[in-house]
């Protein structure tokens, strides 16, 4: 469904020497798969996601969505950002309506659809509040509702819960799984947390230094769902992921990201 073919990405920040973030990456994500991209900060995980979203374009190689080259962002590839990235001047409901309006919904249908998605994430009571009045966890819920309302074919999630406290993080992970189990949308989920990857994913793609070529491990998670956080199998999976990560040096790229529309 999403395919990276020999993708390299390099950028130069303000006249400095170009930095290679991704080098000859090949990756295929199939329909309905929940794939976690795991790696230390600065290894290019977010860049990979931005390429799939169409916010950035590869320096070499190509990114395909349903066998068509990705040329722009679009509602079929919904993105949940690390910070909720809600429009602060719009109410929660209007934030969800934003994408629906672009799809041509109007009037009461628009309002009802947006409200239904908010309800599905337990946000019905907050529909008319401004984002500033919500906690970080609730804002991220709104961001998820907003993206689900687009009915995307794939969800691209960039460390969506990493800024939240542990409790909200676990609750939102469970909520995400509940929603995923009901309609099995393809998910590409970027994280630096072994815990998160082992608990959520069908398959974990581990990224490391570009010297090694970007992706250096691609592991299936042999656990049934629903999973328990205290299950032995999960602990074993976490240990395996840790062992793989330990073979790689930590942060190998400068923590700057390319700014492009």
């Amino acid at each position, binding site marked *: 469904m999403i395919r990276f073919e020999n993708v390299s990405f390099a950028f130069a920040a303000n006249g400095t020497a170009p930095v290679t973030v991704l080098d000859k990456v090949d990756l295929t994500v199939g329909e309905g798969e929940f794939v976690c991209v795991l790696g230390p900060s600065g290894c290019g995980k977010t860049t990979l996601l931005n390429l799939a*979203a169409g*916010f950035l374009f590869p320096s070499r190689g190509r990114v395909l969505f349903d066998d068509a080259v990705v040329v*722009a*962002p*679009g*509602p079929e*590839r*919904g*993105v949940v*950002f690390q*910070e*909720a*990235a*809600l*429009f*602060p*001047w719009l109410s929660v409901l209007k934030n969800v309506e*934003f*994408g629906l309006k*672009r*799809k041509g919904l109007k009037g009461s249908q628009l309002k009802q659809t947006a409200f239904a998605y908010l309800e599905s994430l337990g946000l019905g009571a907050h529909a008319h509040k*401004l*984002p*500033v009045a*919500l*906690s*970080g966890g609730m*804002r991220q819920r709104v961001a998820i509702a*907003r*993206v689900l309302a*687009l009915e995307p074919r794939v969800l691209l999630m960039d460390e969506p819960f990493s800024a939240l406290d542990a409790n909200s993080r676990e609750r939102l992970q469970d909520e995400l799984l509940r929603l995923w189990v009901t309609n099995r949308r393809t998910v590409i989920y970027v994280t630096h947390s072994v815990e998160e990857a082992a608990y959520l994913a069908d398959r974990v793609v581990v990224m490391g230094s570009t010297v090694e070529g970007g992706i250096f491990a691609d592991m299936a998670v042999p656990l049934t769902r629903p999973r328990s956080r205290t299950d032995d199998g999960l602990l074993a999976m976490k240990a395996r992921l840790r062992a793989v990560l330990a073979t790689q040096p930590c942060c190998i790229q400068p923590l700057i990201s390319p*700014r492009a*529309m």
Partner: protein
Amino acid sequence: MIFLRPVQRFIAYWKPSVLPLLIVLTIWELAARWVLALRGVAFPTPWTTFVRLGALVGGDTLSGHPLGVHILNSLRRWIMGFSIAATLGIGYGLLAGRLRGVEKATAGIPQLLLLVPGLAWIPVAILLFGIGETATVFMIAIAAVAPVAINVLSGIKTVDIQLVRAARMMGARRHILFFHVLIPAALPSLISGLRIGLGTGWRVLVAAEMVVGTGSGLGYAIIQARWTLDYPASFACIAVICAIGLLVERGLLGPLERRTRSRWILEEGPR
């Protein structure tokens, strides 16, 4: 005592200004006495100024007009000049923020305008419009337009990239992106620009009235009172100018700016 709420809020809002005001008045009083002792010149004290202001408010005329007429004329010119500046500044900022070509072709011009001191426009204003009303309004407009333009443009250019990406991901293109995302996101900067422009305009207005010869207005009154050695009246006009500036700044635009900022910017403080 619900009806006391606004009063309490008013007191709470202006309370921090009391001490600075007392300090200013003290320095002023000391300076007045010092000048009197050293040079034998009757430098108006806060009290004599206050008394003169009372008389002016009570109906005394200055250069043939009551104080109210001077104030109204100044305010009218200010509003006219500032409206022109706001329209042009916002228009330019949005256009340059939308069209790369316009931004490139005009790069640095607002910054250049910002460097020209307001009074340096006097010869230009007089050559263009002669002496009088239009010249004054022109000077206010040209001095206030740059801060507005610069703030609007930079507001558009520095919109959080994640907001733009989110909008594009949801299917927003070109003009939807511009009118429904970039402009609202730039609103706090726009209001800052207006606030700065308003202050700049006010300062230039008073200076312009002193020179361009408008026949009325606070600046004109100050300079005229000097010829008649009515220094307390000059000082009273200066006090009025400060009061009006402070009122508009702290009473109107300051709260408006804070309100949009606190609403727009989500990262403020832990939740």
